């Protein structure tokens, strides 16, 4: 079975790159939410629920939206599209916000819209809701992105679990440190051919995954 990365988006170090093309750069911003909002606006993404998300979900959501813009998955059934994401900090960025809301007993107002985001897999939930993805999904945590684990895990989904397309990647955020890499994985025979130029793609191997995360 030959699997390929048919589209990727990386959001890191003030820039957004899609399939090796720079599509956004912002030199100065006060906080990370402003950076994400600027990307949202430039890319004309119309999805009001975006503003209810925490920063981790916004980051993962945006990176994946840009991937799926390049390579829409409409031709696949909901149940055969999977999504596997990972990071190092889980939901710690939002955990701190929730913790702050309950630290001071004289000003004790835990917020359900914050608490719900204190689980890293919610970013998967948000992506599934927007794109009607109902297949295999999982959120893994590791200190560094593990290309070998992903290669084995995702290949297995295609071979044994009825997955026909899979979003996978790394969505890491803590304070001012952020790095998101979202990728679409498809079977070689399902890759869309566009004209004479072969569309951007990379074979889905652990080596290519590990290279991609540090490419930009």
């Amino acid at each position, binding site marked *: 079975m030959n699997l390929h990365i048919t589209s990727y988006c990386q959001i890191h170090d003030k820039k957004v790159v899609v399939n090796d093309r720079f599509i956004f750069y912002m030199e100065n911003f006060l906080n990370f939410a402003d950076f994400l909002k600027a990307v949202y606006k430039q890319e004309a993404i119309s999805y009001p629920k975006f*503003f209810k998300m925490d920063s981790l979900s916004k980051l993962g959501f945006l990176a994946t939206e840009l991937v799926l813009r390049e390579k829409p998955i409409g031709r696949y059934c909901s149940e055969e599209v999977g999504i596997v994401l990972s990071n190092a900090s889980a939901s710690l960025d939002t955990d701190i916000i929730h913790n702050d809301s309950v630290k001071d007993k004289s000003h004790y107002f835990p917020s359900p*819209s914050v608490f719900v985001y204190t689980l890293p897999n919610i970013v998967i939930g948000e992506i599934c809701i927007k794109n009607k993805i109902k297949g295999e999904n999982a959120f893994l945590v590791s200190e560094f992105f593990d290309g070998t684990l992903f290669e084995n895990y995702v290949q297995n989904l295609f071979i044994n679990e009825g997955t026909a397309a899979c979003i996978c990647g790394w969505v890491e955020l803590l304070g001012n440190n952020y790095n998101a890499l979202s990728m679409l994985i498809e079977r070689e025979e399902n890759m869309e051919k566009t004209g004479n130029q072969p569309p951007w793609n990379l074979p889905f191997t652990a080596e290519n995954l590990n290279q991609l995360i540090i490419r930009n």
Partner: protein
Amino acid sequence: MEELIEKLKKEVIEQLNLEEISPDDINPDSPLFGEGLGLDSIDALELIVLLEKNYGIKIEDPKDGKKIFYSIRTMAEYITEHKK
């Protein structure tokens, strides 16, 4: 009452992260749930937090929420009645 209604509109927009909505977009008598603002179950819970945090009013029975949060005006009326 009108002053409270304007204040509430701003607070609701902020508490519920309704980024692309301005106070002028909200009709104080329109239902908050259903169509319109597209609020969901988490928003309903957040409005309960808003009442407690900004007005010191604790809603004992969440089932009362449907009446209280029907519209901005019903919220304002409830606050006026119960504010400590």
